[in-house]
């Protein structure tokens, strides 16, 4: 139970992918102009993160380590993610065209999202700071971490898009309109999330 709470809090609040690790900034800045598209992107990223971890973690632990080919992890992982995204796109298109209409346009972008490759690399690395004492990493914790990292990503995306929708109402000089003001907004969100780093378990 302790490990469960620690992973959820770390993934969503204290080690949030955007505000603490700065993974997945491209969609965070690029797709956060409207709340609906930000939420869609967040859900799509979460889905891909969970499925990618579900596939890469066992492959790394049960295939690559016994065969001593850990050094190929980057090539393997990026290929798995790229093909997963393609497959997911086709499946969603077939099963639910309405969901595809809402989410489909974001799926191809996810291949080059650092958050997905980042989470698959993180869970095979050193997680001792997050796991409770004596608990070993396994696929359950890995997938849980991926799921809540995605939830944290979606949370920040939605907050950011809400603030940017408000910002659209104001006129500003050409030099600071667009990316610069979005980054200053992101700075304030990060400062708000820094408060959570005082949580200790």
């Amino acid at each position, binding site marked *: 139970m302790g490990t469960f709470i620690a992973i959820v809090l770390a993934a969503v609040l204290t080690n949030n992918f955007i*505000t*603490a*690790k*700065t*993974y*997945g*900034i*491209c969609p965070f*800045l690029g797709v956060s102009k409207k709340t609906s598209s930000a939420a869609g992107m967040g859900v799509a990223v979460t889905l891909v993160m969970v499925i990618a971890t579900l596939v890469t973690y066992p492959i790394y632990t049960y295939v690559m380590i016994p065969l001593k080919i850990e*050094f*190929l*992890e*980057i*090539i393997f992982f*990026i*290929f798995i993610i*790229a093909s997963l995204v393609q497959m997911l796109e086709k499946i969603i298109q077939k099963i639910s065209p309405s969901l595809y209409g809402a989410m489909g346009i974001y799926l191809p972008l996810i*291949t*080059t*999202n*650092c958050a997905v*490759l*980042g989470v698959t*690399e*993180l869970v095979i*690395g050193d997680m001792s700071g997050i796991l409770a004492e004596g608990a070993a990493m396994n696929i359950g914790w890995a997938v849980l971490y991926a799921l809540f990292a995605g939830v944290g990503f979606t949370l920040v995306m939605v907050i950011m898009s809400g603030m940017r929708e408000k910002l659209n109402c104001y006129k500003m000089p*050409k*030099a*600071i309109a667009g*990316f*610069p*003001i*979005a*980054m*200053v907004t*992101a*700075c*304030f969100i*990060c*400062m708000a999330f*820094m408060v959570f780093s005082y949580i200790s378990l």
Partner: protein
Amino acid sequence: MNKFKKITLDGLIFQNPTFILVLGTCPTLGLINSAFSSMGMGLTVLVILTLSNVLISLLRKLIPNEVRIPCYIVIIATLVTFARMFLDKFLPDLYESLGGFLALIVVNCIILGRAEAFANKHTVLESAVDGVSQGLGFTLALTIMGVICEFFGKGSLFGFAIMDFKIAMLATPAGAFLVYGISIAVFVYVVDGVQRMLRVKTNKLARENMLKEAA
């Protein structure tokens, strides 16, 4: 010759990957809290970008158009794997400080973006020049912001302590966002101003020439 000058200027200023195109933001924001790691990241990307541009430009007639993105990703992932092994063996300090962002160079949009937008349409030499200048533009931008963030956030430069006064917030991701945002604004403002000045100058010259010819 003029062509290479244009490619170089584009990479360094007018199409600067960090300030104008705003690509490769994740490593930028994650690493500019230290001048050493941001410069190391910039140089690593410079080498990988140049090599990938050259390789993709060499293979551009062999790679079928439909499967070009997976092909580019294999080339880039292989280069990143090499870079990772090299840094792990010869520059362990840099390897430590880059952390997870070293593997994430694979999904750095600058490298895939240049492959897609430039290297698959241009000759090997042009692609190499483009890789070096875009990489240099990225390195310079990261180093400048790294110096600002480290100097004010930690009171040191490249790891050497300089002063006691520090604004700790600037060494966190929040400060990185702030410095990056302000740097883009200043850069865009200055480049716009310079371009406007150049345009006024050329217009003036053209008008004087016309007047001379008329006379």
